[in-house]
């Protein structure tokens, strides 16, 4: 299973990758997780690679080989669709965060992303994760809402996902994250 998480720095991609790593380890798989720290944390485009299976060599997902691209922001999803394998699924937040070239008016935020994805015949699941995160009680649970939707689209049992979240998320944020997970899980 190859998963690419695409996000904007600060959205919680690292925590999401930790949940996935824990999940894979718990179900007895070999697993590698790779992310780049540093400059990219400052509101830049960030990706985390998660791979698990019987034996994993490369820690990075090759373009065209991801089962799932999990996008925390609409434009970031579009930026990494080339990582999807044929018939892979793009699970994307519909939230838009303007990058600096858009803010200063050098370029426009593309308005036709969903349409373009449809034209490419990509299997997509869109969700307004920010809206659900607000509803769950903490705006920062966008990542967990999306993990919920990912869980629903995976062959791995729900209890395993809940267990991995419990083992990863700090105690004081656990309830709100479990609620956010349920909201994402119950979407389809």
């Amino acid at each position, binding site marked *: 299973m190859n998963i690419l998480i695409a996000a*904007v*720095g600060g959205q919680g991609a690292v925590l999401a990758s930790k949940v996935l*790593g*824990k999940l894979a*380890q718990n179900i007895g798989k*070999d*697993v*590698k*997780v*790779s*992310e*780049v*720290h*540093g*400059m*990219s*944390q*400052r*509101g*830049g*485009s960030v990706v985390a690679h998660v791979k698990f299976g019987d034996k*994993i*060599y*490369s*820690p*990075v997902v*090759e*373009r*065209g*080989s991801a089962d799932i691209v999990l996008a925390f922001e609409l*434009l*970031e999803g*579009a*930026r*990494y*669709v*080339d990582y*999807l*394998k*044929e018939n*892979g699924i793009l699970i994307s937040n519909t939230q838009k965060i*303007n*990058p*600096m*070239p*858009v*803010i*200063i*008016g*050098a*370029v*426009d*935020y*593309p308005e036709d992303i969903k349409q*373009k994805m449809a034209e*490419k015949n*990509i299997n997509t699941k869109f969700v307004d994760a*920010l809206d659900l995160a607000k509803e769950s009680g903490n*705006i920062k649970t966008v990542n967990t809402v999306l993990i919920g939707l990912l869980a629903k689209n995976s062959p791995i049992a729900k209890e395993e996902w809940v267990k991995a979240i419990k083992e990863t998320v700090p105690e004081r944020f656990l309830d709100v994250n479990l609620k956010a997970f349920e909201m994402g899980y119950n979407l389809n």
Partner: protein
Amino acid sequence: MSKKELLLGNFAVARGAYEAGATVATAYPGTPSTEITEYIAQYDKINSEWSTNEKVALEVAIGASIAGSRSIVSMKHVGLNVAADPFMTVTYTGVNSGLVIAVADDPSMHSSQNEQDTRYFGMAGKCPVLEPSNSQECKDYTKMAFEISEKFDTPVILRLTTRISHSQSIVSLEDRITDEEIISRPYDKNPDKYISAPANARKRRVIIEERLGKLQEFTNNPENNLINVEYNDKAIGIITSGASYQYAKEVCPNASFFKLGMVYPLPKEAITEFVNNCDKVYVIEELEPIFEKEIKSWGLYVIGKEIFPTIGELSPEIIRTCLKEAGELESKSLVTYEVQEDLPVRPPVLCPGCHHRGPFYILKKLKLNVSGDIGCYTLGGVPPLSAIDTTICMGASIGMAHGFEMAKGKEFAKKSVAVIGDSTFWHSGVTGLIDIVYNKGNSTVIVLDNSITAMTGHQENPSTGKTLKGDMAPQIDFVALGKAIGIKRVVEVDAYDLEKLEEVIKTEVNAEEPSLIITKRPCILIKGVKFEYKDLQVNSEKCNGCKLCLRIGCPAISFNNETKKAEINKSLCVGCGLCVDVCKRSAIELKEKKD
């Protein structure tokens, strides 16, 4: 004990140092190496510190080694440039207890100003280099590095790369060797060895060559677990190491492999045997053709950089493409869905509420020549702030500003400033400042003091009042230091007081003597740092769409093309109020104050 954990490569290095019985660890933070020392700090049995720079960090570790402790020093690749001076001589003196130098290279420059291959330093210093290919090896090789260091009386470089340091894979944990087993050696009072004066150094120079030969014999022996030879289909043999091994293994599962654990010096006999046993041999190495050139110098035929790139990190995709172009693989690109070409890029930016924004806004407004430095404020070089003109290396801003004056004279100095962060100033800015005073320069130096080493993820430094372990520490005072070295014009100013800031900078650049300006405000990401105002909003009646507020480059402000007015994104805004001061029409209002 055999517990398995999913660990970051850097954490595994830290764990290796712990299990090996290290008792001293030093570092200066630098992506991608920082987490090694952050993780080590959690072990009570290891005495650890953030040193002021990598040179000092290595010197402390050398001292600790001679005094009898297993010691590890960690840095990024450019850090070894700073530490090169002690490094090139500790290879002469050798060690007492084991000394490991963990150096993390950053191929593709994810967070660096250049791309270097630390294996060259190993060659230059005639120092053995180990390179792990996953987290388990990060731990195992760290432990082996200590053993090799003591066995051969040499420092050992543990070379990492971004993908190894920042990837997690499963690691079996073991116990730390017990205190009785730790070779806590007595202080080694041995001046003939440790005083590298000419007469002694000439003798040590001979020993280095002998040591290199012994290391070659050692790595040649498969029992020492530094080479991993795996014969499959002998039509293709691959010689590789580190992350490249993992990529190549994924792309060519059926090929024969020669994986190097010690990447300098090379096991000549073992490699020769492998090359002779395979029909065709490819050398796959990230960055420089170091294995390739050496193997070719032995008269063996291998293929390397003829088909693989020298620039940037490798990946399964790059290796696949290169081998396909060489006619070796049938497989085509895996990509099914192409990306739209015209998507806007998303570069990193200064955070909303970042205190560097005010000074940069003023520097741009005053059209000054600005020599910049390494840190978050390097982001002040990108639009719309576009405030800095140069960045070379840690601490360079100050010497370069003096260079501006040396070249163009006093009047040019009145149009120039150096900007540097607090941690970078302590690292290597202070010597440049002394140079200016001593040589009667007139430069203006601005220290952007945000009370933390921010870019690498918030590490303590000499002016934050805390140590690596979180204990209280003396706070070294910029003002007192400036005065002590003879600067009469030392000014502290609030980074958010734009009016005052502009006045101070204008005055100080015009002064015909050196000036030190300290803009003080803690990093907005430090826990507990908050602003007085809660909610900012644009009054759409007052806003005339002039876009002046967009010039501060705040991610929370954007322009609505339909209404032709500025807007504030409330989920990003932290209420710093800088935009309120910038707007000439008072169109940005404070909606409500915090309690």
